[in-house]
């Protein structure tokens, strides 16, 4: 039993409690948050190597035997996501020190961040479908707090749409979980994977899988249900929207990978084409939406949607290779997107506005920031040798192998349009001469630039060290699809049904 799996959940929770209790003293709250995030980072990096060396780790909360209680399962995908979450959280906390107003910090900003970390950690580690719903709600409620913290008009309006549409997604998740429990009689993912393989009601399971597809799509911002994203992500403070851009939609993608890769394998084959169509539409509509926008963070918000399409393409190209490419792309995307939001947000913070028309001249004033922007945006568009190149290369290779010519074509064209959008921001924010007086504009401090520099360096490192990352994502994709070993790891060698039937006979 790997009881240490509780630590990345307990440490943020207890730190959030402590930080709430000392709420009014900023310095203490800051140090508590930083300490908790550093602990999580250290732990998750250790977990990354430990899982790579020994395989899945499992523990049962409350010491209940496997399919009865709640299992915590850490495999390669969980470890990757946990590590990325901790890195993003660390960068955000550092960035918050210099950008978040004292007023917001006093109103429990750091406890909310820690609760978000708690919720994400739980969502990545749980092996139980209903528990996954609960973790989703934990991280959602923390994100609700963060997105409306400050109470400006835009935040309230955007937050309202964010809340309502996400609640509908959650409800669909709950309905799906309830129906699945009615059909299969269990909610443990390993047990579900075992039972759904032999269940004689394929039609019902396919319909139930549709509920899950809708629920996770609305969390991930896929095409018919993405509207909450561009209307809300540019409203909170820069640190918050950078964190959300990297993390929150990706929790939805993670859930899609996990649930469709492990539990609904047969349904994944059935939905494969639909998922590819959604992926193509998401890419195209996201990138087209970005072209119409004239605000830095709104352009970037639309690009999140477009990029999420690539990750779904990895899932739609059913199989280990596709999923591995998707995971690699997700790793790249989380790092680069957060970096872009932070750089663009810093420019916005300095200029006091995010409207392209009123910005400019940033390349002369802040050359380091401009250089970072160029690197990050080239990485997003997929130029070698940056991380985005290998992400897209992997997806396109798998697509060509499977003969999905149309999909590959769309993916390639969309990345051209991405480059166009990034260059638009470059021209307007950094390159053109400013047409407003900028003498009073503050300079970027080292603390403002350091977090995004860290992320850009990470993106370059992923680009140059692509092969270990690729190997690891392949390893985790195999783990996601290998239900047999999952069942054995969670319920013991005889499988979950054996455990339940002995319990019935006693």
């Amino acid at each position: 039993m790997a009881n240490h799996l509780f630590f990345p959940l307990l440490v943020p929770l207890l730190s959030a409690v402590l930080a709430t209790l000392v709420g009014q003293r900023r310095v203490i709250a800051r140090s508590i948050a930083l300490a908790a995030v550093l602990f999580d980072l250290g732990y998750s990096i250790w977990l990354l190597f430990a899982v790579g060396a020994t395989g899945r780790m499992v523990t049962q909360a409350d010491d209940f035997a496997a399919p009865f209680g709640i299992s915590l399962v850490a495999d390669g995908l969980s470890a990757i996501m946990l590590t990325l979450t901790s890195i993003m959280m660390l960068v955000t906390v550092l960035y918050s020190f210099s950008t978040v107003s004292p007023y917001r910090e006093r109103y429990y900003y750091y406890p909310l961040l820690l609760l978000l970390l708690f919720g994400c950690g739980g969502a990545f580690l749980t092996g139980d479908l209903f528990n996954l719903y609960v973790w989703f709600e934990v991280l959602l409620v923390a994100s609700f707090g963060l997105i409306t913290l400050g109470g400006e008009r835009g935040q309230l309006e955007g937050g309202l749409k964010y809340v309502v549409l996400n609640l509908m997604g959650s409800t669909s998740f709950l309905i799906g979980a309830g129906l699945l429990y009615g059909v299969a009689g269990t909610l443990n993912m390993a047990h579900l994977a075992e039972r759904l393989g032999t269940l004689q009601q394929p039609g019902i399971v396919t319909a139930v899988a549709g509920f899950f597809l809708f629920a996770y799509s609305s969390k991930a911002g896929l095409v018919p249900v993405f509207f909450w994203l561009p209307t809300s992500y540019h409203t909170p403070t820069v640190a918050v929207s950078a964190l959300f851009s990297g993390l929150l939609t990706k929790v939805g993608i993670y859930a899609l990978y996990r649930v469709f890769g492990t539990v609904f394998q047969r349904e994944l084959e059935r939905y494969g084409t639909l998922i590819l169509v959604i992926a193509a539409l998401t890419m195209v509509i996201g990138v087209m939406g970005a072209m119409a926008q004239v605000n830095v963070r709104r352009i970037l918000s639309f690009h999140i949607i477009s990029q999420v399409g690539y990750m779904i393409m990895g899932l739609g190209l059913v199989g280990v290779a596709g999923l591995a490419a998707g995971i690699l792309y997700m790793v790249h995307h989380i790092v680069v997107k957060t970096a872009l939001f932070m750089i663009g947000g810093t420019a916005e913070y300095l200029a006091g506005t995010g409207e392209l028309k009123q910005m400019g001249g940033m390349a002369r004033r802040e050359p380091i920031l401009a250089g970072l922007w160029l690197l990050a945006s080239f990485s997003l568009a997929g130029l070698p040798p940056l991380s985005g190149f290998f992400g897209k290369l992997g997806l396109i290779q798998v697509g060509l192998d499977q003969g999905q010519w149309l999909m590959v074509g769309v993916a390639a064209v969309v990345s051209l349009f991405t480059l166009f959008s990034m260059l638009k921001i470059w021209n307007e924010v950094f390159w053109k001469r400013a047409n407003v007086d900028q003498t009073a504009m503050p300079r970027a401090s080292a603390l403002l630039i350091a977090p995004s520099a860290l992320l850009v360096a990470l993106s370059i490192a992923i680009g140059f060290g692509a092969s270990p990352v690729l190997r690891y994502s392949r390893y985790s994709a195999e783990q996601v699809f290998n239900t047999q070993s999952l069942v054995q790891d969670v319920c013991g060698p005889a499988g979950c049904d054996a455990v339940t039937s002995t319990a019935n006979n006693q």
Partner: protein
Amino acid sequence: MTFILSLVVGTLFAGAAYLMLRRSLVKLILGLVLLSHGTNLLLFLMGDGVVKGMPPFVDEATGVTPTVAADPLNQALILTAIVINFGFTAFILSLAYRTNQAVNSDDLDDMVETDRL
């Protein structure tokens, strides 16, 4: 019993859909509340059938396990969902209250500031 409850679930969902499609913010929230109630009832229906008055306990005197018993897991799921919905409803009501103060309107079509180019 199952049939009647299914009808109730359907009615709740229909009412929720109708209310959520209205333009008023308050009706939208009422629709969300109805939706969550319908979902809770759906979870209730999804156990091993609705069994009345059969708690899933071993008889203390005889030590016999009951052959027919109510499924306890549904109760746990519903309780969790109710608590979560309770928190969310409180949050969204106060959010709507603040939004109404800021926008000075109950009409969702007036809340387009963040969508305008």
